[in-house]
Each structure stands twice: as C-alpha cells, then as structure tokens.
C-alpha cells in the first residue's frame, strides 16, 4: 500500500488532509452522507405509501388480518407475533453489532469476531423470516373475488369469520383443458388453470345460505363491512368478475392492489439492504479474522459497516410501524 501513495510533503497540514472536518474521518463521514441520502430514499417510499393510504383511507387492508401467520401454527390467528419476533431479531443483531464495535475500540479481536458472527447470523435469520412472510403473502389464505370495478369481495360466515373459497366452492366439470406446448401454441403455455371459475363461485355461493360477502369498506368500528345475505347475493352476482388467490403486483386478495405493491417494494428494498448488509458484514468479518484491522491499528472499518447495519435496523423500525401497526 505504502508504495502507491504519492507523498506531497503536506501530510498533517490542513491542505494535505491533516484537518478532519467535523472531527470525523473521511470514511465515516461518507458513510453518514450515504445513510442520509438512503434515508431520504426510504422516506420517499414510505411517504408515497402514506399518500396511497390516505387516498384509500376508508378501504385500506387491515394489517392484522393480512399478516397473521406464525410458523408451525396453522389456522391460528396470530397477528403481529411473527413480525414482532422479526423486529426483535433485528434489534438484537444491532446490539451484537454495537458490541463488536465496542470490542474493536478496545482492540479485542476475538470478541469482535464473536459478536460479528452473531450479527451475521441474526441478519440471515431475519432474511429467512422475510422470505417466509413473502411466501405466505404471495400464496394467500382465503382467496377472494374481484369485481368489475376492480374491488375485492371476501367471504365470511355468519360469525364474521373468514371463509376460504376452497371451503365452499364446488367446481363444475371442467370444460377446458390447460393449454401447454403440446396442444396449443408451441412457444408458450399458460399457468395452471384455477380449480374453479367465477361461475362456480356464484352458484356455490347461492347454494350456501350461511355465507356472506365482506367488502373493502371500513365501517365506523374500524372493521370491514359485512353485507346482508340479500345484498351479498346481489353484489356477487352483478359485479363478480374473477377469482384472485394470493397476491402479485396487479391483483391481491387482501384489497387495494397498491397495498401489495408497496409491501413488495418497501419490504423488498429493505430486505435488499439487509442482504447487502450481511454480505458486507461477512467481508469485514473475514478481514477481522485475517487480522487486517489488528495490523492497521484500529477497527474503524467495523464501526463503518456497523453504521450501515444500524441504519438497516432504523429503517425497519419505521417499516414495522407503518406497515404493521398503524
């Protein structure tokens, strides 16, 4: 390294870089400036989410009903527990990171190694949890009907408990085979046909007296509106246009399509930050193992990657609030 540095004879003087503006080293200051700009990016996303939510304030999906899964607890309504666990894991990995920085200040290499290792594990667990959350979100639980106006109709029983389409719809004999490469256009195939059509849903609904339609509109109690049986029949027969199960960027069974878009985009962008954070942590972890910073005489690099890692945690605190709590 030393050989490539051009000596100007002004080292240590103000114009030779001897003066540290704001009493922070160059690397640390640039990390802070990056973090500020990244924070503004995330704020832009969250503010756009807020905009859309205010625009659909009386029909926005209720997060407690969407994110209510917990591993190994099928069919149990567990709102928030899982995401609270994820938050806790990320905060804890932030703690181990700051402990690694602290150990670095005291030049205790083995402690830095241990805490950075824990941080990386925490990050990986968080990423896995997020993947699981996405899987549940994409797969969906109950299924719903889209209307001609692009709204979502969900189904509940008389107690207001959600009913899945698969629970009450019986499919009429299939009249159409799936189009794949051997029996249709050779260059394309279509996704698996849905198990039933919108017509099946309508006839099955009319046959099941005790099922009601729930619309997106939020009533005075902060709950989704449940129509009477007569209204339900009229609404479904007149407006039902298609079936939607799970979520993608254009349709989702939870309600306003923008909800899924923002969920994918914001938690995805945050997850991408966690992923890069884990990768950078791994690189620095090996540098610590190799003794790079021991030889350099300081562990400032651990501090800088730590700043990034805490920032990822900081963003999650806001995502958690605005996606799951508010």
């Amino acid at each position, binding site marked *: 390294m030393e050989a490539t540095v051009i000596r100007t004879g002004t080292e240590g003087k103000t114009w030779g870089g001897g003066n540290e503006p704001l009493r922070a080293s160059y690397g640390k200051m640039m990390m802070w400036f990056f973090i500020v700009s990244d924070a503004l990016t995330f704020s832009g996303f969250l503010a756009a989410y807020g905009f859309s939510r205010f625009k659909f304030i009386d029909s926005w999906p209720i997060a407690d009903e969407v994110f209510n899964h917990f591993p190994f607890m099928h069919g149990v309504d567990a709102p*928030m527990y899982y995401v609270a666990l994820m938050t*806790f894991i990320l*905060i804890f990995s932030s703690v181990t990171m*700051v402990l690694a*920085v602290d150990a670095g200040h005291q030049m205790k290499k083995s402690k830095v190694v241990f805490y950075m290792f824990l941080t990386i594990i925490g990050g990986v667990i968080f990423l896995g949890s997020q993947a699981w959350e996405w899987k549940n979100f994409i797969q969906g639980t109950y299924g719903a009907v889209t209307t001609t106006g692009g709204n979502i109709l969900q189904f509940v029983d008389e107690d207001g408990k959600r009913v899945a389409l698969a629970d009450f719809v019986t499919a009429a004999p299939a009249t159409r085979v799936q189009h794949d490469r051997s029996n249709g256009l050779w260059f394309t195939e279509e996704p698996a046909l849905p198990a039933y059509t919108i017509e099946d849903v309508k006839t099955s609904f009319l046959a099941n007296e005790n099922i009601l339609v729930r619309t997106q509109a939020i009533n005075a109690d902060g709950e989704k509106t449940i129509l009477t049986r007569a209204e339900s029949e009229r609404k479904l027969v007149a407006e039902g246009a298609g079936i939607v199960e799970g979520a993608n960027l254009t349709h989702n069974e939870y309600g306003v399509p923008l909800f899924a878009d923002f969920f994918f985009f914001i938690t995805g962008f945050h997850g991408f930050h966690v992923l890069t954070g884990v990768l950078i942590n791994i690189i620095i972890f090996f540098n610590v193992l190799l003794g790079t910073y021991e030889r350099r005489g300081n562990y400032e690099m651990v501090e800088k990657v730590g700043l990034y890692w805490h920032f990822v945690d900081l963003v999650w605190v*806001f995502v958690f609030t605005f996606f799951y*709590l508010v």
Partner: protein
Amino acid sequence: MAHSSTHTHESNTKRIWLVFVILSIVTGVEVVLGIIKPDFLVDYTFLSMKLLNWIFIILTLYKAYYIAWAFMHLEGESKGLRRAIVWTSVFLISYLLFILLIEGDYVYEVFKNNKVSWDF
C-alpha cells in the same frame, strides 16, 4: 486514523444493554397495544389521526432516537456533523410528508364527494 489511538475508549457495554432493554420494552408495548387496540385510544383522534397511531409514531421516533444516538453513536460525534445529519433529514422528510399526506387526503375527498364513479 491517528486520532482514535490517542483516545482511550472505555467500554460502553452497560449502556448498550440498557438501550437494548429500552428498545425491547418499547417494541413490546407497541405489539401489545397493536393487539389489544384499547377502545379509548381508537375512538379519540388528534389532528384527524387516532390517538393509538400517534402513540405508535411517538414510540417509533423514541426508538429511532436511541438507535441513532446510542448505536450509531451520534451522541459522540461533533455537533456540526450531528446537525448536518439530523436537521437535513428531519426538515426534508417533514416537508415531503406534509405535501404528500395533504395531497393524498385531498384526492380521497375528491373521490368521495365529487361526481366521480369509483366503484362501478
């Protein structure tokens, strides 16, 4: 950097664990409130937002403060750097939120009250 070796760094472990406990408790309170949703917090609003949501936002900012000050060690940076970071973000983000949320509410009013068929 030459300056870090001249400083003597005493261990902050105790404070780190304390902050961890604070953050965990605050998160716990948020989750419990989010599950129970007490009636009186949901029924009353301030600036057309439920009290419960105000509590969530204030607790979030409280957590953000601890993460930035204790974990990211802003409390130890020079005043100039701290202000460059915090004031810039706070000013720009408040402005952005103000504009977008007001506009979102306006669009909602338009859909609701004007002669626009939203559900056809």
